[in-house]
């Protein structure tokens, strides 16, 4: 998985959220109005029609009732929305608390914590299984999986089955005959399950931490670190020295890395912004991890040679760091002291500078990388070079990693409780699983990607769903324009009209699909542990913030859906 390394832009996220939620709300509102109107007006009109043709009595006060029916849609739906908002606004903390405690009690009495037993057993076997290994990455990943998988199952069972069971046992009936609001029931459930989940995860995480530390051999403990990187953005210069967005493709099917060619003017340039020099500890530590691609054998005894040049973006001052042989299968760490002496190629003499003044201007700096072996290639992606600041405490990064896992579980609870407000346990479970998984499944990803990247109004080869269907049935090649060659009516202007209408409808369908895909959660945001397992800190702005935002984004829509489902459901009649 490619990690997020650029800070998450909260404003963009909020705008996106507002667009999606706003559009959906609008769509639902209109649909509700239409449905209410139909249910009121159609029977009335039907009776009137019957009266006209069969001589049955004409509906009394027809005009009055028609007006009333037409008004009922907008009026009732607006009233419903208002009442819903009011129901949330008037929630009583006391009742929510009571319902939360009840949910916690219920979970405990239904043996939710047996998940701890499963965890303990798995940990015991793992102890034997992994004994003696020194790959810390494996331990960390293992602990996260062994906690998150059983917890996922537990959370699904709790959240999807709790409310339906409450309804089936009719114990909820007694609760709703008290002054309990439906919103309080939903929120109480959510908080209760969240509390149980948080407690269980916290407990297991502590055990997991102790296990990781004890399992790691003494000499491998140094691998339990949380590096705190500062990332830049990467661009390239091609072999003629021209700006290039991408590096050379050396034939990898995975074009994650771009390559620069040795001995030419080809460069990789990282641009850093807003460097806080106070965090640097009076030195510049550059860590990189490049992929070497040898086009010829070269000097087989030595690894490839590269050089960093620090560039002050304001003054254009260039500071060459001594050449280094890269480690072809691991990190290169280069430490440059703040007071640094280097050979200045322009003045052809040694110069001593204060790096923080000479290379960094207003927190901005560039690092240029070149490969010094003629005809060899060096591959890099944006995340492959970064500045290092002092390490964060490992335990703290570990806690933040689990915050990601916890946020994922909380989101599943939110989905589960919402689903359980309108269906029974099994259906709710399946619905939740599908909703969580669809975007993660390979075969769908490509389709979703295409839908998301489709710009509004942009031509699609072969057209949208309806046009494509027409083309299939009329054996029309995707390349030929449809209106020229399709003649269902024989009249050109009518054909053109049909074509226009089809295009419009397709446009709407694609917009609908885009909206639908946007609604599906991207759970990769919660894989915080990969950062930790790779020895990095789990940073707030690149890793944790997107996860927090993702979970928060669903709270309001889910609460509303849950509330309206529960409210419009006749609890008694099943």
């Amino acid at each position, binding site marked *: 998985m490619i990690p997020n390394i650029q800070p998450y832009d909260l404003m963009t996220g909020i705008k996106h959220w507002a667009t999606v939620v706003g559009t959906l709300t609008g769509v639902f509102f209109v649909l509700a109005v239409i449905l209410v109107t139909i249910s009121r007006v159609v029977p009335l009109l039907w009776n009137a029609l019957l009266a006209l043709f069969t001589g049955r009595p004409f509906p009394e006060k027809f005009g009055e009732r028609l007006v009333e029916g037409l008004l009922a849609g907008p009026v009732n739906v607006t009233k419903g929305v208002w009442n819903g908002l009011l129901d949330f606004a008037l929630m009583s903390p006391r009742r929510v608390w009571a319902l939360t405690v009840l949910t916690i009690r219920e979970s405990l009495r239904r043996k939710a914590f047996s998940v701890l037993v499963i965890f303990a057993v798995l940990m015991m076997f793992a102890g034997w299984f992994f004994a003696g290994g020194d790959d810390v990455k494996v331990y960390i990943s293992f602990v996260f999986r062994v906690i998150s998988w059983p917890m996922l199952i537990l959370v699904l069972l709790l959240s999807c089955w709790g409310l339906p069971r409450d309804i089936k046992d009719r114990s*909820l009936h007694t*609760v709703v005959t*008290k002054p309990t609001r439906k919103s309080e029931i939903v929120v109480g459930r959510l908080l209760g399950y969240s509390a149980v989940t948080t407690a269980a995860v916290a407990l297991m995480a502590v055990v997991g931490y102790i296990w990781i530390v004890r399992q790691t051999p003494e000499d491998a403990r140094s691998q339990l670190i949380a590096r705190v990187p500062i990332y830049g953005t990467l661009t390239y210069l091609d072999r003629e020295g021209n700006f290039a967005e991408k590096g050379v493709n050396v034939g990898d099917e995975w074009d994650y890395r771009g390559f620069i060619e040795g001995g030419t003017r080809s460069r990789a340039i990282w641009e850093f912004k807003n460097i806080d020099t106070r965090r640097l500890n009076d030195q510049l530590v550059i860590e990189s991890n490049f992929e070497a691609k040898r086009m010829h054998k070269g000097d087989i005894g030595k690894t490839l040679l590269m050089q960093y040049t620090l560039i002050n973006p304001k003054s254009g001052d260039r500071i060459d760091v001594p050449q280094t042989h890269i480690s072809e299968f691991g990190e290169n760490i280069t430490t440059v002291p703040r007071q640094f002496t280097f050979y200045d190629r322009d003045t052809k003499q040694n110069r001593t500078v204060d790096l923080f003044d000479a290379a960094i201007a207003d927190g901005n700096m560039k690092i240029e990388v070149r490969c010094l072996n003629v005809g060899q290639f060096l591959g890099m992606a944006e995340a492959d070079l970064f500045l290092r600041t002092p390490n964060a405490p490992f335990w703290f990064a570990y806690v933040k990693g689990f915050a990601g896992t916890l946020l994922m579980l909380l989101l599943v609870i939110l989905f589960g409780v919402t689903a359980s407000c309108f269906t029974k346990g099994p259906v709710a479970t399946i619905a939740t699983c599908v909703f969580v998984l669809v975007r993660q499944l390979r075969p769908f990803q490509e389709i979703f990607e295409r839908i998301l990247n489709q710009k509004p109004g942009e031509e699609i080869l072969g057209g949208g769903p309806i046009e494509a269907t027409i083309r299939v049935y009329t054996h029309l090649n995707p390349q030929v324009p449809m209106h020229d060659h399709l003649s269902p009516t024989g009249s050109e202007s009518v054909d053109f009209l049909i074509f226009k209408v089809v295009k419009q409808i397709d446009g709407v369908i694609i917009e609908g699909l885009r909206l639908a895909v946007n609604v599906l959660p991207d759970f990769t945001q919660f894989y915080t542990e990969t950062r930790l397992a790779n020895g990095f800190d789990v940073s707030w702005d690149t890793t944790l913030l997107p996860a927090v935002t993702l979970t928060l984004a669903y709270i309001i829509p889910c609460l509303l859906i849950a509330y309206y489902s529960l409210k419009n459901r006749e609890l008694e009649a099943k």
Partner: protein
Amino acid sequence: MAESVIQIRNLSKIYRDFWGRKKVRALNSLSLDVEKGEVFGLLGPNGSGKTTTLKLLLGLLFPTEGKITVLGKPASNVEKNERIGYLPEESYLYKFLNAEETLNFYGQLFKMSRVERKKRIDELIELVGIQHARKRQLKEYSKGMTRRIGLAQALINNPDLVMLDEPTSGLDPIGTREMKDLIIQLKEQGKTVVMCSHLLADVQDVCDRIAILYGGELKVMGEVDQLLTEQDETQLHTSRLSEAAISEIREVLARHNAELSGVEQPRANLEDLFLRTVHESKSRPGRRFTSDEAAQSSATTAVETKTDDKPSDDTPDDKNSPAS
């Protein structure tokens, strides 16, 4: 007339299945009012729509047609529930809670201070007589105990309107008697009670007005006293009479053109016997009654109770046909 606590107008309820197809018409154009401070009984055979009516009043079901106003608010309004207590047909409580936790939970759903809640819980546990089981989970409760905690739950908020769905079902005779006393007590406190029951004797004892439903339709409604007074019969209670005295009375009656329709020795009803036995067992534990003794003790008391015997059981007292 007193103010209406419940107004039902033209209420119909059709149960539908998942696909919206009609299953049962449980209520048909029901209209009735319950006034403040009265005890109202809903009667009717099984499946006549009593429970459905109560559930509609509580907003657990949505009416197919018609209007409901409870305490001046529509049935879907939750705020009115602050003043309502409901004892369901079967107790729908959380089986994993114990009695105290249950009452505490329901108490928390109402505006009530913690101190007040604690006090109320103790009172109610005492009132419904489950002190010995206050720490036991409800899943271990017997049916009657469950009914009792259900009742306590319904009264936790000291409601103005109490709806009881078959309050005496599952209760032992003492419980039944206590329940009846309680209902009368509630009425004395000015509360309104709506109850359904099959035990007509109980209904007759406590209800001011009744409605009889049949097949979802209202058949009879009115004040119990009025509905039950037999206009063409008179009943006398006397001390024990000899055969001679009875034949003399017969002659007197004949002169007044009336007829003596039956002469019987009054019998205590089973309820009385049961209550007495339990009371005596309490005061003299370890003692057992044989049927002779029981009969004897019943005979002695029969004399005492003769005058205040209620005409509520199915063992009739003397009945005389009065002259018109």
